[in-house]
């Protein structure tokens, strides 16, 4: 084989097509850019985590417990090192007198020594060194800006008013995501008890940070703590474990993003295949002439394979460079979620993988049309024939290529997801999606061929006939654009689905403000303040804390130690906050048994009602007995009913409901929900209650929805940013396929003009064709996204999906406009130049 000639011919033959080839390349460029950006970012991140491992924890060891440490645990820690710093953290209202606003916050009472590694970054920078000395507080910088607070203003936590010494920018091991649940307020550990909050119902988290003595065997410490963990019930993290946790989370995140980016690359592949198809079709007579002149089938194939490979390589190279640049922007998107400062450098391995993947995808997808080149007969020089390229290939060849593509995609997804089953599902989902889109394309072409009414005017008939004519773009456009739309729209709809479940604002009858941790002696006072503010009280629910002591006669500890147990650890271990009442509430429905409303016989087993999911987690049935430890007093019970609870409402809901008459005398506190009519009243009521009862916490539903919306916005923005690559690839592929069929369209337009068609008639034909393609692609893409979101809602979130037609409407308009724009751009220049000039230029 004369390689010299083949390369020369590949180069010469590409000369007049390079502009068109660039469009094919663009699809690969975007796909590879997404890949390289994400993989480089992951490498950067892993490296950063490795470099900043100790700062992730701020110490060598962190031990936490929901109660004070037992002497033996403390003694063990003392044996490790004297370098210990304690932290007490809990949720409570922080009141800012300057703005008269109270906000549920995360209070952290810290000892001076923390952190041992890294620093608490503050504004001003010395604030972390001073707040303990000055008995002041540090408050999240973001909340200070939001409330227009300055250094020297004050914050009231419980009974103590602290001066704000500085704004918190960063705490070792925490990301901005830690502030989504409420602003962080750091106060000195030494006088935390004086806040009066420790005894009043708050859930406290006791943490000790330890810095090891030199020579400590950290693996041995982990082993010893592991051995003590079950009996003393505490949690711990050391640097290695924290590094693993963070690294693992990042691998999942980046693999997920990578997969979305991979879809862009696959779309690029489909774009390459369709472009090469059209390209090869245009080259049939050239190949036939070369075959006549004596070129072998392999020589003919190699000419175009070299072009496709070169195109893939150049595209991948540009993509890799672009991806490396984009990588610099990615940290801006995700820094809030990541507890390390991301160090940026070029990851050559990512660039290499991007190049290989890009070239492989280009060649793999180009092979199907390219192999048809081998079958082009020299006889085509004597007779012009319409060749069906796919028809030239044997079924076995097509099957083999399809299998290679499917295996390649699954293999890549496997590497990305580290889970073969998930990878198979990914490929399966993608295949089903593509098959549906291809099926729709065939259906539309058949329908257009059969059902175009002969009574339509000429422009309409021509425009619609373009949907099925040779060189039509129906299949390519539906596959690429449709898949991109499906992906992006699914993201939007899923986000909307999640927001919809918690957005109760504006819904009458539902509470929008909840107070909890109201002590028994405070309940009447709180209710009075609510009434004084003219606010409607919806629920005032007593809560009794308890733990499971035994199940069906077996001690909980014994069950926990049983390696064959079915019951789940969390359900056995947790502190239950139960209530008592004589009826079901509107958020509950009876699933099985009978709800007992009242029970007054002390000393006998109490008939209780359990939540359905919990029944499963504890492996229980109606009639089973449970013994509860109600703050030291054992209470025997048996299950008489099972309830289905709608947890997605802002009312307090319960796993376990006791009948009225038995728990009234037990130590208890209250949760109260109200419905305020304005934001001002919400703020005033919170302030009044916090000033009177500092330990009472308030959850402002509107505030939570806002925070969650903000959080989801950030998360979905990251996903959409990567998903955007798919849409861009879809558009490029669309533009590419439009450009390849440009000559065909131009010939028709020129012919029509030669035959006397007005310019506006020609334009109208194009508008009808592209508007139709746009509408169909948008609708089918959206239809599939509705299906996929409904499935995500059903299987993943267990939420019934109600589509948001405003979002869908906006998407439809944007998508049609985009397709129309690209289609019309494709006909530019046709109308102003003489027909012959255009034909010569385009040849």
């Amino acid at each position, binding site marked *: 084989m*004369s390689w*010299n*000639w083949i390369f*020369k*011919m590949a180069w*010469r*033959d*590409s*000369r*007049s*097509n390079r502009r068109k080839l660039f469009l094919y390349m663009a699809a690969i460029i975007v796909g590879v850019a997404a890949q390289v950006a994400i993989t480089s970012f992951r490498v950067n991140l892993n490296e950063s985590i490795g470099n900043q491992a100790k700062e992730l924890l701020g110490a060598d060891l962190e031990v936490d417990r929901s109660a004070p440490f037992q002497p033996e645990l403390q003694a063990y820690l003392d044996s490790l090192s004297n370098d210990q710093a304690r932290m007490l953290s809990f949720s409570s209202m922080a009141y800012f007198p300057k703005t008269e606003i109270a906000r549920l916050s995360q209070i952290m009472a810290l000892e001076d020594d923390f952190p041992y590694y890294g620093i608490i970054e503050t504004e001003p920078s010395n604030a972390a060194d001073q707040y303990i000395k000055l008995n002041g507080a540090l408050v999240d910088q973001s909340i200070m800006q939001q409330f227009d607070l300055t250094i020297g203003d004050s914050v009231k936590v419980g009974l103590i008013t602290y001066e704000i010494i500085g704004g918190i920018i960063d705490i070792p091991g925490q990301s901005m995501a830690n502030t989504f649940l409420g602003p962080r307020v750091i106060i000195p550990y030494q006088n935390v008890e004086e806040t009066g909050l420790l005894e009043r119902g708050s859930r406290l988290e006791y943490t000790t940070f330890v810095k090891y003595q030199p020579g400590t065997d950290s693996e041995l410490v982990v082993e010893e703590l592991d051995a003590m963990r079950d009996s003393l019930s505490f949690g711990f993290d050391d640097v290695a474990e924290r590094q693993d946790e963070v690294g693992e989370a990042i691998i999942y995140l980046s693999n997920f993003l990578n997969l979305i980016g991979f879809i862009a690359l696959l779309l690029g592949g489909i774009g390459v295949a369709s472009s090469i198809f059209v390209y090869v079709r245009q080259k049939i*007579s*050239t190949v*036939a*002439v*070369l*075959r*006549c*002149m*004596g*070129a*072998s*089938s*392999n*020589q003919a194939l190699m000419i175009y394979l070299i072009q496709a490979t070169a195109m893939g390589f150049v595209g991948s190279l540009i993509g890799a460079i672009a991806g490396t640049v984009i990588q610099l922007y990615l940290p801006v998107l995700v820094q809030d979620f990541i507890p390390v400062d991301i160090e940026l450098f070029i990851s050559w391995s990512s660039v290499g993988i991007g190049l290989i993947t890009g070239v492989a995808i280009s060649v793999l997808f180009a092979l199907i049309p390219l192999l048809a080149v081998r079958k082009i*007969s*020299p*006889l085509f*020089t*004597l*007779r*012009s024939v319409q060749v069906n390229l796919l028809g030239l290939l044997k079924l076995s060849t097509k099957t083999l290529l399809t299998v290679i593509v499917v295996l390649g995609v699954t293999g890549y997804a496997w590497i990305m997801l580290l889970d073969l089953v998930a990878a198979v599902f990914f490929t399966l989902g993608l295949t089903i999606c593509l098959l549906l889109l291809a099926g729709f394309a065939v259906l539309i072409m058949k329908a257009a061929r059969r059902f175009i009414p002969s009574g339509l005017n000429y422009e309409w008939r021509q425009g619609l006939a373009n949907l099925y004519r040779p060189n039509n773009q129906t299949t390519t456009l539906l596959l690429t654009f449709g898949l991109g739309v499906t992906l992006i729209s699914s993201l939007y709809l899923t986000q909307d689905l999640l927001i919809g479940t918690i957005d109760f604002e504006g819904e009458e009858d539902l509470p929008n403000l909840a107070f909890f941790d109201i002590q028994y002696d405070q309940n009447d006072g709180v209710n009075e303040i609510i009434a004084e503010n003219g606010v409607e009280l919806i629920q005032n629910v007593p809560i009794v804390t308890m733990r499971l002591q035994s199940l069906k006669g077996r001690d909980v500890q014994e069950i926990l130690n049983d390696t064959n147990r079915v019951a789940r650890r969390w359900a056995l271990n947790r502190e239950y906050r139960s209530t008592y009442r004589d009826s079901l509430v509107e958020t509950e429905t009876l699933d099985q048994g009978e709800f007992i409303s009242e029970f007054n016989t002390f000393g006998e087993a109490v008939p209780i009602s359990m939540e359905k999911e919990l029944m499963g987690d504890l492996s229980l049935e109606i009639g089973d007995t449970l013994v509860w430890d109600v703050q030291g007093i054992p209470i025997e019970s048996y299950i008489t009913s099972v309830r289905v609870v709608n947890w997605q409402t802002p009312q307090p809901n319960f796993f376990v409901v006791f009948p009225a008459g038995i728990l009234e005398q037990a130590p208890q506190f209250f949760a109260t929900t109200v419905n305020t009519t304005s934001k001002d009243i919400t703020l005033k009521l919170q302030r009044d209650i916090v000033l009177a009862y500092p330990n009472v916490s308030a959850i402002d539903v509107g505030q939570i929805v806002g925070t969650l919306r903000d959080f989801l916005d950030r998360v979905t923005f990251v996903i959409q940013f990567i998903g955007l690559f798919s849409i861009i690839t879809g558009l490029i592929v669309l533009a590419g396929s439009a450009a390849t069929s440009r000559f065909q369209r131009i010939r028709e337009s020129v012919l029509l003009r030669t035959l006397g068609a007005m310019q506006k008639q020609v334009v109208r034909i194009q508008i009808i064709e592209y508007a139709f393609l746009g509408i169909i692609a948008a609708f089918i893409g959206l239809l599939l996204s509705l299906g996929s979101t409904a499935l995500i809602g059903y299987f993943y979130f267990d939420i019934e999906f109600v589509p948001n037609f405003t979002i869908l409407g906006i998407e439809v308009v944007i998508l049609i406009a985009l397709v129309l724009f690209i289609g019309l751009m494709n006909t530019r220049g046709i109308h102003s130049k003489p027909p012959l000039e255009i034909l*010569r230029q385009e*040849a």
Partner: protein
Amino acid sequence: MTKILEVKELTRVFKSGTRELTVVNNINFGIEEGTTCAIVGPSGSGKTTLLGLCAGLDRPTSGVVNLTGTTINSLSEDERATVRNKHVGFVFQTFQLVPTLTALENVMVPLELRGEATSGVRKRAIELLTEVGLGDRVHHYPTQLSGGEQQRVAIARAFINQPKILFADEPTGNLDTETGEHIEELIFNLNKSERTTLVLVTHDIELANKCDRIIRLKNGKVESDELVSINETEVAG
């Protein structure tokens, strides 16, 4: 004289669904080296199909084609391509130049395919292009040339590999009379100077009469086979 092309009991049947159409039906003839032969006949008589079979562009349904001493119907597609590259030249009605190559590059293709050194090939291509009167248009693309000029490039390409046999399919069919005559002149002159055998398909009787021999086809069969110069008729077979 040696026969450079010999066909025996040549038949080509096309299938369309269940229907069979015999386009070339049991044809026999031989062509001597260095002669010129025209295949004539009305549209649909099987001229072009016969040319394709003789030049090894297509496989017969049955029968034998012996070209330059090789039985080509038993060769693979690629083996036939090698035979064409070594011994055969083509001129088509629609010129069939590669649109992405310049006139010079188009002419160079057959020799470059053999792997011959570019400088020599280039020199010979320029000579041939000059010979056909296009010495100043060597770097033009096909779309920048007129029909007659394109056909002249095609002729130069056909002769660059010094073929033993040249197949021409309606070489003047797409050209006006004056240009057509010029092209005919070129083909015959080059044919003579290069001592190539010429087989041309045409329905232009005037052109056919310039050949040594005329084979007339009708409905896929040889209707007559006559030598023009000595006015002698031979029945095929």
